[in-house]
């Protein structure tokens, strides 16, 4: 006779439920603490050798194709004003140096932060009197990558504008807020569990220092907002709309979380 008869199913279920509940309570009690400044690491540090080689050489990095497109667009006249970016800003290698390091920035007109894509589109609609470029369109990514490229190697600037403070806090709140069907926050992965694996994928700290970047999974260049959208879908939460204030405050918070880290735009990531 079998002496160690299995427990009734209901008891086992209850035990399993208590275990799950306990682990949730324990996980919840470890409050999401910021990563100490000296422990922050760019996603680059955990790339494979091949992906690193791809990012290191502009002749091999496919995002260079976008940067070259952006350079052409920079010098191309557009809109009713028949003006090119270069007509106002001149040589981007000088005038755009460091610009991407301080975006999202405060826009008095919008009464809040705007990101680099929105800044480019503001210029398009106001100065060039042209139709704004759609989010994630090749042209907008190309221009953003070209402008971003001019800040490569520079540290992400600490926000000095007092008016940005409430928006950074709003971004932090979204970062730590549980969302979606699996009730997960950004911080639970990227602050509390970075360096581990999520399914088979390495879990990085989630720094925004390489955007727009070439993601091998995308087979193309994409923005930080597209990457955030991917995360939100993974959390089974409804993604915010492109250009929404939620995405911009998240971008702003992520840039401040990564302040001082080196810009790698356009980076390569898996």
């Amino acid at each position, binding site marked *: 006779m079998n002496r160690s008869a299995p427990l009734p199913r209901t008891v086992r279920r209850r035990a399993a439920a208590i275990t799950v509940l306990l682990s949730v309570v324990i996980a919840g009690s470890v409050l999401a603490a910021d990563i100490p400044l000296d422990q922050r690491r760019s996603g680059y540090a955990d790339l494979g050798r091949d992906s690193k080689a791809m990012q290191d050489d502009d002749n091999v990095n496919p995002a*260079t*194709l*976008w940067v070259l497109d952006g350079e*052409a667009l920079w010098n191309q006249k557009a809109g009713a004003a028949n003006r090119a970016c270069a007509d106002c800003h001149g040589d981007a290698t000088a005038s755009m140096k460091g610009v991407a390091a301080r975006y999202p920035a405060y826009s008095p007109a919008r009464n809040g932060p705007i990101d680099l894509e929105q800044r480019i589109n503001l210029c398009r609609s106001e100065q060039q009197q042209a139709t704004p470029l759609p989010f994630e369109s090749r042209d907008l990514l190309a221009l953003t990558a070209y402008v971003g490229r001019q800040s490569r190697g520079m540290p992400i600037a600490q926000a000095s504008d007092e008016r940005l403070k409430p928006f950074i806090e709003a971004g932090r709140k979204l970062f730590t807020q549980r969302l979606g069907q699996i009730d997960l926050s950004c911080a639970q992965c990227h602050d509390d569990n970075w360096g581990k694996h999520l399914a088979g994928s390495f879990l990085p700290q989630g720094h925004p220092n390489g955007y727009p970047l070439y993601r*091998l999974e995308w087979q*193309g260049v994409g923005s930080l907002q597209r990457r955030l959208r991917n995360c939100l879908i993974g959390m089974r939460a409804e993604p915010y709309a492109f250009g929404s204030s939620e995405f911009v405050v998240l971008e702003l918070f992520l840039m401040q979380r990564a302040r001082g880290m080196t810009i790698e735009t356009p980076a390569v990531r898996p």
Partner: protein
Amino acid sequence: MARPLINVPAKVKRGQAFEIKTLISHVMETGYRYTTVGARIPRDIVTFFSCSYNGEEIFRADLSPAISANPFITFFTVATESGTLEFKWVGDNGFSEIATATIVVE
């Protein structure tokens, strides 16, 4: 669309092997994917690549749908004479692109 990126050393010693790197902008749509409403996305790939060195073909490749977007093709050849390297890509929907690079052999 950006021009193809070609990277060859400006000067090479005669008899020495050198690396040629090429990168071209292309979607490489496999033809096996469907849109959200079920319509098949037609195949659009680069099917052929070749490189000639002073008119003589030194490298050729047939590309397939399994190759990623923006194909990066790199290979070696031996420096014989100064001259021109000509690169050619041919693909679906009449896609054709030619690029050249000059090399000085000492």
